[in-house]
């Protein structure tokens, strides 16, 4: 069955989204440079709402910087339009930060939030030292991985790779992080996923787990940031279990171990 994508006007943005299946809603938030990705492992018995965030995929960019807060507000506005009052969310990388921003800014909307590959602090404060050096050398002119660039240019209504890269890098550098207080105030149940070879230091992931009251932590062995693009099920089997079941055993002992 092919699913026809739709557009919704959200402020000045014409936001692209797809709806697949029926069941409890699940919003999927893609990573930087990516577009709506419906993972089969998560789609079963769910109403999946996959979106293209500002300037990504089929959602054309507008004159406004990228911020995680703005992307969260866009997605919240779309859900309102779709008359979805509460949803689960899976966010990957940039989408994970948008998911956190949704849990912070629109707490009533988010039941369970699963994230993979994200930090809550600024990149400066959360990237491993060597990775940060590499990251700082990236420029819009030099950064052009084919596995991201080609799909983007194929579906964007107004492709401008360098413009997109510039805005993403700018948004990463401008991000000051969420505050510990904001993290502590998150009401949603949160699954924090990371690889043991991730782009965020392990101590930072642990800190995030300690701050978010109802959170569980999953670290996947021999796993990197990109795993969602290469072998998503490695992570998503656990994510699915969380989204469907939430906490079962360890919630009450978390206090003791952190």
């Amino acid at each position: 069955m092919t699913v026809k994508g739709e557009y919704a006007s959200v402020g000045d943005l014409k936001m692209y989204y797809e709806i697949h299946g029926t069941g409890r809603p699940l919003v999927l938030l893609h990573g930087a440079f990516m577009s709506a990705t419906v993972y089969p492992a998560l789609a079963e018995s769910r109403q999946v709402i996959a979106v293209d965030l500002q300037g990504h995929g089929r959602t054309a960019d507008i004159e406004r910087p990228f911020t995680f807060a703005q992307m969260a507000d866009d997605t919240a506005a779309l859900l309102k339009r779709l008359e979805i009052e509460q949803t689960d969310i899976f966010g990957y990388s940039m989408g994970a930060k948008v998911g956190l921003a949704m849990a912070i800014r629109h707490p009533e909307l988010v039941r369970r939030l699963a994230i993979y590959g994200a930090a809550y602090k600024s990149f400066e404060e959360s990237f491993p030292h060597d990775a940060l050096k590499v990251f700082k050398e990236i420029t819009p002119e030099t950064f052009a991985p084919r596995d991201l660039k080609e799909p983007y240019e194929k579906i964007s209504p107004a492709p401008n790779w360098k413009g997109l890269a510039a805005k993403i890098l700018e948004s990463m550098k401008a991000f000051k992080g969420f505050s510990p207080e904001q993290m502590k105030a998150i009401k949603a149940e949160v699954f924090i996923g990371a690889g043991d070879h991730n782009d965020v230091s392990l101590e930072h992931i642990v800190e995030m787990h300690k701050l978010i009251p109802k959170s569980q932590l999953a670290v996947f062995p021999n796993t990197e940031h990109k795993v969602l693009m290469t072998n998503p099920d490695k992570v998503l089997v656990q994510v699915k279990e969380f989204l469907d079941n939430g906490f079962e055993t360890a919630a009450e002992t978390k206090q003791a171990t952190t």
Partner: protein
Amino acid sequence: MVLKPQLKQNKQRLKIMRKIIASEFHMRKIMNAKPNMKTTTFVLSILLSMLLAGVVSGQQKPTTGYAPVNGLEMYYEIHGSGEPVVLLHGAFMAISGDWNDWIGELSKTRKVIAVEMQGHGRTADIKRDLSYENLSDDVAGLLDYLKIPSADIIGYSLGGGVAMQCAIRHPEKVRKVVSISAPFRRDGWVKEANDFWPTFTWEIFKGTPMEAEYKRLSPTPEKFPDFVNHIKAWALRPYDFGADKLKATKAPMFFIHGDADGVRLDHIAEMYRMKGGGEIHGDMQPRSASRLAILPDTTHVTLMNRMTTIVPMVNDFLDTKPSKQ
């Protein structure tokens, strides 16, 4: 075969365990209202979980024996064939119950040498301190006795500590280490776990399946209180393998934990960092040979129920060839 299928007995044990677990959950509810008692349930639940009866499946007959090692008559079983891997149980455990399932699963592709460490199961206690050092020397001695030059070592809880100690004290004998839910220093355990031991007496196990299992397996069935007290004495002693010594080990290590398993997450991060992990962006840099897994919503006890998740991870780790530098 030492472990005969004992379906009827297993069923009965399961029934007893269910009752105990049900009352344990009930206790936990009460104890949540009294946080000072929480620690007792925490450790109790660790201990009880070790007794969950698993159905012994009709697998190939293992080789069994007693190895004369450092004054011990150390009981071992060898299952399957392939690369050798030593399997080390946790405190109060033996080759019994759930542990048999792990042996069965791992021995599908490798030669599993399951042991019963000093005082545990069929290995009688001797007049010697229980310590990580002594027990790791026993493992090395057993490998000598079996004429196995080197092996992988998998340990759970106390056995995980012994496995790390093997890599520190007997580097030439250890290929890779899998440590499940074990810290390398006393303060790696959460405070609640350390606070528990001084209040602990052997009577806590009186009439439990743990006591029954001890009496069934041990060559000295009357010495259950002594055995428990011996472990208690060990548990009260401070220990620290030394971060520098862990760091100096050559064997790649795979640390497997639950996000609520009684080992402090900061300690887990520290341990992984000692082995070169925690700061590597796998998309941009070469991997460390060591690995880390943290299972969500999982405790020290429930890690034992995650066999189907853990064993494939372990096999992948053990089967990975070292990358060429």
